[in-house]
C-alpha cells in the first residue's frame, strides 16, 4: 500500500481517536464517595516472594482505614497492578495508573531498578510515589516519599556497635554486583575507618550467581573477624550455606547483613543464620503490644498463622497511614497538597514512631540490630535511643547540619566532582 502524507494523517487521527475512545469507555472513574489510589508490586516472577507480602500489607492498611470510615469521608479504592518482576512492566503499569486511571498517589516498588523505571512517569505527570524499601540513597525526587531506610540509618549505628561492643577490628565487605551494595560499601568503609577499625577486602559476586566457594574461601583465609554482607536474593541463601559448610561460624566471624530479613532466614533454614546479625529499623520480634497486635492482624489478614513480617512490609503498611494523615491535614487528595502537608508528619507505626523529613521527604527511623536465633526469629540486641534522620547522600559527605537534598531540590554544587 502506498502511504501518502494525507492518508497517514487521516489514518493516525482515526487511530488516536480510537485509542482515546477506548480509554474513555474503559476508564473507571472514582465515584463521589471513593478515592482511587494505585499500587504496583510484582505478584508474579522471581521477586514476587517479597513483593506479594508488601502488596498484602498495603491492602491491609487500606482495608483497616476503610473499615474505620475511610479518609475525609471517602472509601479508598485500590487499583493493584502486577509489576511482574520486570522494570519495563513497572513503567507501563505506572503510566497506566497515572495517565489512564489518573490516580494522584501510588504505593509501589521494591527494587531500585523498578523505582528508577517508574520515576520519569511520576516526575513528568506530577503524581506521588510512596516507596517503602530500604535503598542506596543518592536520590532527591520531589515526586517520591521514601519510607524505607537509607544507608546511614542502617549503618551509622551498626558499625560503631560492631567495633566497640563486639570488638571487631577487621571487616570483609561482600555484596552482589550492583548499585545498592556498592553504595552501602562506600558508607561502610568510611564508618569503619572513622571508628578505628580496618576493612581488608571489598568483593562482589554477580547478581543471581550462587557459586560462593572461592569467595568464602577468601573470607576464611583473609583473617577478618566480621563480614559486612550486602548480598541480595537467592544468592544470599547459597552464601550462608557455603559459609557454614566451609567451617566458618557466626560466633567467631559473624555475617553482618543489611539485607537478610525474616523471609530469607525462614527460606534458608534458621540454623544457617543463627548467630549472625542484621541491621534494620523493623523486625518482627519487636516486643511492644502495638507490634504484637500488628503481627496478629497481618497473619489473620493473609490467613496464614505462620506468616512473617519484615522491614519493607512494615514500611508498606505505615506509609498508607502517613498518606492518610497528609490528606487529612491538607483536606485535599491532590499530589501537590499531599507533598506540602506530609513534611514533618509523624505516625506511630508498629515498629515505633516514624517521621517524614520535611527537607528530603525521606523517613526518620529508629535503627535496630538483631541477632538471628535458632528458631528463625531476630533477637534485638541493640536499639538506637531515638530516630535517626535520613541522609540520602551520606556516602558523599552529607551530614544533618549540611543537607544536600532540601525542599528546593538537590544542591549539586555540594556533590564531589
Amino acid at each position: 500500500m502506498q502511504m501518502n502524507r494525507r492518508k497517514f494523517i487521516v489514518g493516525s487521527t482515526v487511530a488516536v481517536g480510537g485509542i482515546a475512545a477506548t480509554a474513555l469507555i474503559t476508564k473507571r472513574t472514582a465515584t463521589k464517595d471513593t478515592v482511587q489510589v494505585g499500587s504496583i508490586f510484582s505478584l508474579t516472577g522471581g521477586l514476587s516472594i517479597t513483593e506479594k507480602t508488601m502488596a498484602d500489607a498495603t491492602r491491609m492498611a487500606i482495608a483497616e482505614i476503610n473499615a474505620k470510615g475511610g479518609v475525609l469521608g471517602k472509601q479508598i479504592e485500590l487499583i493493584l497492578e502486577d509489576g511482574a518482576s520486570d522494570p519495563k512492566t513497572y513503567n507501563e503499569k505506572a503510566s497506566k495508573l497515572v495517565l489512564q486511571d489518573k490516580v494522584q498517589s501510588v504505593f509501589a516498588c521494591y527494587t531500585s531498578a523498578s523505582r528508577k523505571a517508574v520515576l520519569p512517569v511520576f516526575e513528568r505527570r506530577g503524581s506521588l510515589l510512596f516507596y517503602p524499601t530500604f535503598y542506596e540513597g543518592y536520590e532527591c525526587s520531589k515526586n517520591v516519599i521514601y519510607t524505607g531506610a537509607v544507608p546511614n540509618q542502617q549503618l551509622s549505628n551498626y558499625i560503631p556497635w560492631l567495633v566497640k561492643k563486639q570488638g571487631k577490628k577487621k571487616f570483609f565487605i561482600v555484596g552482589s554486583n550492583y548499585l545498592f551494595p556498592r553504595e552501602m560499601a562506600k558508607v561502610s568503609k568510611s564508618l569503619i575507618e572513622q571508628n578505628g577499625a580496618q576493612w581488608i577486602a571489598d568483593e562482589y559476586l554477580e547478581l543471581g550467581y550462587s557459586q560462593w566457594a572461592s569467595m568464602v574461601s577468601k573470607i576464611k583465609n583473609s583473617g577478618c573477624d566480621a563480614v559486612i554482607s550486602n548480598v541480595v536474593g537467592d544468592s544470599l541463601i547459597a552464601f550462608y550455606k557455603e559459609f557454614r559448610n566451609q567451617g566458618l561460624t557466626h560466633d567467631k566471624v559473624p555475617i553482618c547483613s543489611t539485607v537478610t530479613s525474616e523471609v530469607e532466614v525462614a527460606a534458608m533454614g534458621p540454623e544457617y543464620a543463627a548467630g549472625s546479625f542484621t541491621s534494620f529499623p523493623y523486625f518482627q520480634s519487636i516486643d511492644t503490644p502495638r507490634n504484637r497486635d500488628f503481627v496478629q492482624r497481618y497473619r489473620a489478614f493473609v490467613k496464614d498463622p505462620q506468616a512473617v513480617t519484615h522491614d519493607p512490609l512494615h514500611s508498606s503498611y505505615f506509609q498508607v497511614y502517613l498518606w492518610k494523615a497528609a490528606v487529612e491535614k491538607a483536606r485535599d487528595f491532590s499530589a501537590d497538597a499531599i507533598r506540602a502537608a506530609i513534611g514533618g508528619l509523624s505516625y506511630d507505626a508498629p515498629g515505633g514512631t516514624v517521621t517524614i523529613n520535611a527537607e528530603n521527604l525521606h523517613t526518620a527511623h529508629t535503627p535496630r540490630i538483631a541477632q538471628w536465633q535458632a528458631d528463625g526469629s531476630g533477637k534485638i540486641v541493640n536499639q538506637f535511643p531515638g530516630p535517626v534522620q535520613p541522609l540520602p547522600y551520606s556516602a558523599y559527605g552529607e551530614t544533618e547540619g549540611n543537607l544536600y537534598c532540601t525542599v528546593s531540590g538537590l544542591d549539586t554544587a555540594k556533590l564531589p566532582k
Partner: protein
Amino acid sequence: MFDAVFIGLSVGSIMLLVALGLAITYGAMGVINMAHGEMVMLGAYTAVMAKIWLGLGLLASIPLAFIVSAGAGLLIERVIVARLYGRLLDTLLATWGVAILLQQAIRLSFGLAFFGITIQGLGTDLRTVQTPEFLHGVIAVGSYEFNAYRTFVIAFTVIVTVVTWWIMYKTSLGMRVRAIMRNPDMASACGIDVARVNALTFAYGSGLAGIAGVMIAGLESVFPDMGTPKVVEAFLVVVTGGVGSLGGTVLAAGILGQITGIASALTNDILARAIVFGIVILIIIWKPKGLFSYRGR
C-alpha cells in the same frame, strides 16, 4: 593454592553433572535441549517435595529425582523432540517453550494456583534442601580441610561419570547409541530401533540432570528459574569439550572448573567469569568443533 584447586574441582564437578546429560542429548542426538536446565530444576524440586511429603532426605531422593526427570525427558522426547529430528532450530525453540512451561507449572502449582489451591513445596518461594548431618562442615586431613558436602559431590560425580562411560562403551545399548551418533541411517539399516534408542538416551540424559538438581539443591536455593544459568554453563562445557565426546566433556569441565577456581582466587569472582567466557571464545575460534571431536552425523 590448594583451596583454589579443590574449589576448581568442585565447580568443575557440578558443571560436569549438568553437562553429562547435555553431552548425551546434544552430542549424541544433535538436539539442543533448552529444557535441560528445567530437568535440573525438576530434580531439585523432587528433593524438596520428597522431604515434605515422604520425609525422605537428600540422599534418598536421588533415585526419585532420576526417575522424575527421566520420565519428564521421555515425555518431551516422545511428544515433541521425536517429531523434530533434523530440524535443529525448531527443536531449540520448541524445547525453550517447554522450559518456560515447566517453570510456570512449578510456579503456579501446575495451574491449581488459579483456583486458589497451592501445593506445599511448589510456588514462587525460594526453597532449600537440608544436607545430611554427616556432610556438614569440614573433613580435616592433616593440615588440609575439605568441605564435606563438596567432597561428596565430587565423589558422586566420579561415580555417575564412570557409570555413564560404562553404559556408553561397554553395553550393547551404548554401542547402539554410538552407532546412531555416527550415522543414524546406517544404524537404522542395520536393524537398530533408532526411535526407541533415541527416547531412552534422551530420558537417561534428563535423568542425569535430575540427579545434578539434587546435588545443587544441597548447595544453593531452589526456585523455578534456577536451571537457566546452569544450562548456560553446561553448554559452555559441551561446546568446549567437543560435541559427542564424553572424554572431551569431562576434560572441559575440569579445565573450566580449574580456571574458575584459580582465576577467582587470584582476582575476583566477577573477573573470573569474564576470563572463563573469554577462554571459551578463544577455544572455539581455535578449534570450532571443540577440543575433542570426531565427525558424526
